């Protein structure tokens, strides 16, 4: 009898799923059989430090954090590509080098644009 080399993975996957789902099912069964559901105003409140909750959890944040996160992506992506580029720099073809420079310049352009838009200044 021949078995697929992927069979152990399937078995492990099923075991992992069972390991995660069985306690959830047991907990649900326990709650249905013995433990009644008891929600309440304080228990369902937005905030939990002891003081009364005020307002809604859906509030607006300044976009400054978002812009910083996006700018971080420029450096992040650049770092990922720069390392293999530097390692194999000496035996790369001219075309590959030019493509890499074009890529870095594109990222640089994004940074310059953000700089010009004064995104780098925290207000």
């Amino acid at each position, binding site marked *: 009898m021949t078995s697929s080399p992927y069979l152990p993975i399937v078995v492990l996957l099923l075991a992992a799923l069972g390991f995660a789902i069985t306690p959830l099912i047991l907990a649900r069964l326990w709650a249905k059989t*013995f*433990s*009644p559901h008891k929600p309440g105003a304080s*228990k369902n409140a937005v905030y939990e430090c002891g003081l009364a909750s005020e307002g809604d959890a859906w509030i607006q944040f300044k976009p400054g954090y978002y812009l910083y996160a996006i700018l971080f992506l420029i450096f992040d992506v650049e770092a990922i590509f720069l390392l293999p580029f530097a390692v194999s720099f000496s035996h790369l073809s001219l075309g590959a080098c030019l493509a890499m420079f074009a890529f870095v310049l594109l990222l640089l352009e994004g940074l310059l644009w953000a700089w010009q838009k004064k995104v780098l200044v925290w207000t």
Partner: protein
Amino acid sequence: MDEQLKAELSKQGIFTTSLQELYNWSRKSSLWPLNFGLACCAIEMIATTMARYDLARFGAEVFRPSPRQADLMIVAGTVTKKMAPQVVRLYNQMPEPKYVISMGACAISGGPFKQGYNVLKGIDRFIPVDVYIPGCPPRPEALIDAFMFLQKKIDAQQITGAARPRHLDADQPSEFPIPEFGPHDLQPTSNPAIWHPPLVQISQAGPDESRHD
């Protein structure tokens, strides 16, 4: 299964248990206290969790800073009237099953500050207390003793029947009314549903003549 048969089986290397025992055992062995201190008793509570006294031996080293992850509230210290609504709200926000240890003289009755205009005379006026520890402050050994007492209490709980604990009874409330901090006192000053003041016989007839020292 009766106890005798169970002991006989365990002698033969057969371990038997019931769902109730398993549930109580796991519940008492993983009580997560709320990381919440009010006054000097909290220092003793911290000492109890440290290496010297080591509450972790009883499975309670995980002090949770959020009531949503805790099931044991240790009221450690003087409860002022301004703080009482917050204590009750924190208790309400804890998921069931939840237990309360009233630690020290202040949490029981107001302690040395009982005459103070701003001190609540016992947290059991608003939330149900499972174990009281006297002391000012109680030593870590006393807290550990109270903890073991609570574990014994949990171990004896029934999961069905009329004697089952509050959290398994659908008719019992999970949340208690939060008092309001009024201009003179808390409104209301106590929750009559859970607080039954001890009856004190006060005689109007003066000192008892029949007693001779």
